[in-house]
């Protein structure tokens, strides 16, 4: 018998675990499993899953239903469906047989963060390999039972048939309730993409049915018997310390269970949600704080940034760049600015936690259950083995927002009311003022053209605060961690790659890139595409400026300096689809193009923006965005289109409207009135074309649109008006 046996006691225990929880695993629905966990006493420690074992990723029950396990989380990007498609395809089963369990330290492998558009490349690859391995083992088993060579077997919806005899047996019957154990060797044959029937199709997301009918889907919808509600009293500004908290003001308020105070961290736990909200308002009015002022202000911030030139980090070095630009017939220099911008999730961050029997359970919309767990262990000084973090979807997150912070809030409060599940939800104002923003950035580009308008060299200097401040085991990365009586200190990671993401031009010309790490006044971390948004905005605006100076069609100018045929193909597709050549030659039409390959290694994306300008009113309207994307093998074409169109609209919103306002007393963008985003009447029409290359590995696509859209809009405004806008958001 093939290796689905193993006699080590540890595995025995694990099999029992699987058996005990089999029902739950298979019947996993978004609603029941998160509730059931504590009641059923599922283990808190990480399952003893070796990442190279098949059943770390794929499990098949006696009925032939398949459970896929991923350490990645669903953030609205549709990852569940795409991963299920990959497993179903490789195993040759119908989608109806597939279930999925997303990140949970009690069940899934540690796949760190769901970020960087890397889920399909990482988790998808692992699941595909495990599914192929499982299929191979099942075929080997069936060959014995059916007395036929493996080459004489076919599989349809998990039923293996011997072509010669017509005899068949199902996956479920073969396994008979046992799990497929053994390693993913990487040697199992993968299906030929030309035979795919599921991957590459627009398989619909089933979770949309639940969303459209009001079933519980989100962490915000979790309810448990005996659950308490809580709110957090946040400081008025970063670094403020609580000087007085007149607790007597709460006297007479109904439903208050506990006021939790630890240094400047204050939480109020109440029987009912609105009681917690009311108490919070009372506390906000009565608490007094020692408030350090915020500075520097915008636009002084950009001057301060530019003045910092003593710690440059050479990202890309080429000594010929400075002399080439100095000697160029046409020299050009321009400065671009990006303000702080928000994730602005529709659902304020929310978490539930329960401290019971010396174990802490946390339900969270975090992007990384394992890193959150290790950071909670640091915060609470309890071992990781006593903490279990389970991912439950929240509203779209777009990067590192308040999800981890509210998880810490919930954990701290749960410890104060043992036994009780505590649900904490941030108020809108908490989300707007405390989420880590996308950093403000300053970019100075220089370039040279020869007398014929040929590009000679490009130089980029950029200034940015960190884009990576996720909690990776250090509690100082939680807001609450810094407010405690014995505060944890915050030390940003030294990795500055997020800042210079996409700063190195893909264009074939000598280039030099220098990064200055600048510590600004606001809290920053990963916002969808990180530094790529501003870097591509600057680069693709600058290329447009150079094309104009060279007297060349900006699309053709780009093509001239791209060596990669895949890059050229997305631009060419847009040129064809938008009737580019004819329309760009018309003055005042308002057409702009931009391109980037995300991270210079993920999806290729090009975009044409069309604007209408009302010069007298000094206003413009974004009429349409047409995008072309190539992400290698498309797993779910419709999913890629949906994500890309969404990214285009979100980036248009950042680009046209968004900027975090603050003054010395703190953040002033406290809600949607003071931080407006695009509403329906201003949203452009969108169209997305996907180039599918089934023979190539899939590439991350979720963040490809962010940078190019900004530049395309600026370029379109220039085309319409002759005015070059270099500061985001773009205002005429």
């Amino acid at each position, binding site marked *: 018998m093939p290796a689905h046996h193993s006699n080590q006691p540890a595995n025995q225990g694990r099999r029992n675990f699987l058996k005990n929880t089999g029902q739950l695993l298979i019947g996993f629905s978004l609603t029941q499993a998160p509730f059931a966990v504590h009641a059923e006493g599922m283990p808190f420690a990480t399952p003893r899953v070796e990442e190279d074992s098949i059943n770390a990723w794929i499990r098949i029950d006696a009925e032939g239903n398949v459970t896929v396990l991923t350490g990645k989380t669903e953030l609205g990007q549709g990852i569940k469906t795409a991963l299920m498609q990959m497993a179903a395809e490789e195993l040759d089963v119908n989608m109806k047989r597939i279930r999925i369990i997303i990140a949970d330290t009690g069940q899934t492998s540690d796949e760190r963060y769901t970020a960087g558009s890397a889920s399909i490349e990482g988790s998808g690859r692992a699941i595909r390999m495990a599914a192929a391995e499982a299929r191979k083992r099942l075929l080997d088993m069936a060959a014995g039972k059916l007395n036929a060579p493996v080459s004489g077997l076919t599989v349809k919806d998990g039923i293996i048939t011997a072509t010669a005899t017509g005899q068949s047996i199902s996956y479920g019957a073969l396994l008979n309730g046992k799990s497929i154990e053994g390693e993913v060797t990487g040697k199992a044959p993968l299906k030929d993409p030309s035979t795919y029937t599921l991957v590459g199709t627009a398989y619909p997301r089933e979770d*949309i049915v639940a969303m459209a*009918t*009001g079933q519980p889907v989100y962490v915000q919808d979790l309810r448990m018997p005996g659950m308490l509600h809580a709110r957090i009293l946040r400081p008025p500004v970063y670094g403020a310390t609580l000087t007085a908290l007149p607790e007597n003001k709460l006297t007479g308020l109904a439903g208050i269970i506990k006021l939790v105070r630890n240094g400047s961290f204050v939480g109020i736990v109440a029987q009912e949600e609105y009681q917690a909200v009311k108490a919070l308002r009372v506390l906000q009015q009565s608490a007094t704080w020692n408030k350090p002022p915020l500075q520097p202000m915008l636009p002084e911030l950009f001057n301060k940034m530019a003045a910092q030139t003593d710690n440059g980090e050479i990202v890309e070095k080429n000594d010929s760049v400075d002399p080439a630009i100095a000697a160029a017939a046409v020299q050009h220099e321009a400065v671009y600015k990006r303000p702080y911008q928000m994730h602005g999730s*529709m*659902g304020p961050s929310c978490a539930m936690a329960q401290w019971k029997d010396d174990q802490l359970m946390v339900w969270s919309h975090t992007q990384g259950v394992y890193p959150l767990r290790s950071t909670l262990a640091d915060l609470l000084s309890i071992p990781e083995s006593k903490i279990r973090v389970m991912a439950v979807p929240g509203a779209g997150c777009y990067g590192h927002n308040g999800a981890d912070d509210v998880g810490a809030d919930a954990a701290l409060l749960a410890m104060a009311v043992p036994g009780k599940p505590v649900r904490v939800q941030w108020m809108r104002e908490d989300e707007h003022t405390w989420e880590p923003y996308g950093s403000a950035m300053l970019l100075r580009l220089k370039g040279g053209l020869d007398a014929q308008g040929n590009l000679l060299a490009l130089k980029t200097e950029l200034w940015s605060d960190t884009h990576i401040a996720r909690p990776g085991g250090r509690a100082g990365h939680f807001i609450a961690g810094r407010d405690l009586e014995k505060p944890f200190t915050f030390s940003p990671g030294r990795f500055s790659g997020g800042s210079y993401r996409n700063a190195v031009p893909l264009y074939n010309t000598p280039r030099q890139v220098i990064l200055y790490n600048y510590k600004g006044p606001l809290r920053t971390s990963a916002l969808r595409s990180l530094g790529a948004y501003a870097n591509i905005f600057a680069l693709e605006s600058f290329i447009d400026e150079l094309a104009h100076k060279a007297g060349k069609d900006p699309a053709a100018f780009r093509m001239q300096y791209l060596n990669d045929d895949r890059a050229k193909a997305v631009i060419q597709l847009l040129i064809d689809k938008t009737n580019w050549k004819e329309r760009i030659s018309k003055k005042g039409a308002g057409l702009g193009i931009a391109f980037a390959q995300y991270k210079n290694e993920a999806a290729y994306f090009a975009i044409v923006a069309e604007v209408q300008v009302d010069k007298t009113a000094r206003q413009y309207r974004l009429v349409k965005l047409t995008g072309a994307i190539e992400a290698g093998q498309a797993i779910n074409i419709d999913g890629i289109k949906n994500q890309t169109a969404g990214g285009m609209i979100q980036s248009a919103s950042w680009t046209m409207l968004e900027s975090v306002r603050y003054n010395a007393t703190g953040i002033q963008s406290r809600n949607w009135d003071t931080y407006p985003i695009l509403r*329906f009447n201003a949203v452009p029409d969108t169209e997305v074309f996907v180039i599918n290359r089934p023979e190539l590995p899939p590439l991350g696509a979720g963040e490809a649109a962010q940078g190019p859209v900004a530049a395309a809009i600026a370029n379109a405004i220039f085309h319409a008006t002759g005015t070059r806008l270099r500061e985001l958001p773009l205002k005429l």
Partner: protein
Amino acid sequence: MEKTVVLNVNGKAWSLNIDPEMPLLYALRNNLQLNGPKYGCGLHQCGNCMVLMDGKAQPSCMMPCAAAAAHTITTLEGIGSGSSLHPVQKAIIEEQAAQCGYCLNGVIICAKALLEENKHPSDAEIREALQRVLCRCGTHTRFISAIKKAAAANAG
């Protein structure tokens, strides 16, 4: 402080002992355990908490329960479910018009209210009807096509 307030939600009268000042949204989500209406801002700025009040789309996050008692309220759950989906829900699912879906409640409620009044809305009228709803994932263009599809299905 608590009082008995009778709320008429999804065709049933619910007698609740609650703080009459409490905004309707909290009663819907916590007392009636409905998930459709969602908290997004509590300030009438995002539309996540939309319900139908006497057939009109209205946010529920600031209206006290005491005032809501005078109205007939329908939530997303009351619009359609399972095999009896409302045409707007059906079209949203068919068009795969959602990413995170958090804003879907507001979109569907506003679309239903619109189609009750205007069987053949133009693009501009659809945008106007959804103006109070924010979507951060950028699913807008799919929402608009889904609502057009629902209108066509209704008419056909």
